């Protein structure tokens, strides 16, 4: 199942609709990394509210995605990790170290907006 990617101003929003296979996750990673360039996006939100399980593969792919997006000059925020998913991740020993997370889409957008403003301010300040 392909993950729909929505363009919202300077940001891209990818929302998981259901459980994803490894193949789907890799496809999402490629699509987002490509579209950051196509739309000159400053930020990416990956909404995992509907994700049933975050296993080692999903965590590794999301971390790789965030790092690739950063190399393309944009920031990624993972939003919507459910309480039971967070619990299982910690038990399993998974972390999303280095990848910003936020409670939900609203918080994630606010976080990206702030990061984007900071970037703009630094640039203008030079």
């Amino acid at each position, binding site marked *: 199942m392909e993950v729909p990617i929505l363009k919202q101003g300077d940001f891209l929003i990818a929302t998981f609709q259901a*459980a*994803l*296979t*490894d*193949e789907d996750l890799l496809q999402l990673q490629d699509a987002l990394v490509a579209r950051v360039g196509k739309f000159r996006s400053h930020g990416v939100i990956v909404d995992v509210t509907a994700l*049933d*399980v*975050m*296993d*080692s*593969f999903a*965590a*590794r792919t999301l971390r790789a995605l965030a790092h690739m997006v950063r190399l393309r000059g944009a920031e990624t925020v993972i939003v919507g990790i*459910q*309480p*039971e*998913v967070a*619990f*299982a*991740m910690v*038990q*399993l*020993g*998974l972390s999303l170290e280095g990848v910003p997370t936020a409670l939900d889409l609203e918080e994630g957008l606010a976080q990206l907006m702030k990061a984007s403003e900071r970037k703009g301010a630094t640039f203008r300040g030079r």
Partner: protein
Amino acid sequence: MGDEIRVPIDSDADIVIARQQGRALAERIGFSATDQTIIATAISEVARNIIKFAKRGEIILSTTMKNPERGVVVVARDQGPGIVDIQLALQDGYSTGNGLGMGLPGCKRLMDELEIKSSKGKGTIVTMKKWTT
């Protein structure tokens, strides 16, 4: 009880089927939403090991009872290369695949019981149990 669900593991899509079946079974016998997710996560990891190391195998899901507790039993079976050093495979941080070394030690933390039977060249059977408490 007695209901046994067999899920053949042949591709990455089967990993999702196995964990969904496992979650449904856990829900049926009264596990909390958190425990359902924990069981589904452990199934996802052992099913992934099958694909990674043996290419194919199966996950067998069933229920058991140890009065008054009920339990879910997950058996992951393959005829792959087997695990040479089981103690080592259960050590945190150890991995031969390109994973994060979280697979089996992580599953042991997620579930109440985990047992591995394996012989080199003949395959691996991982049996995991979790009890309702």
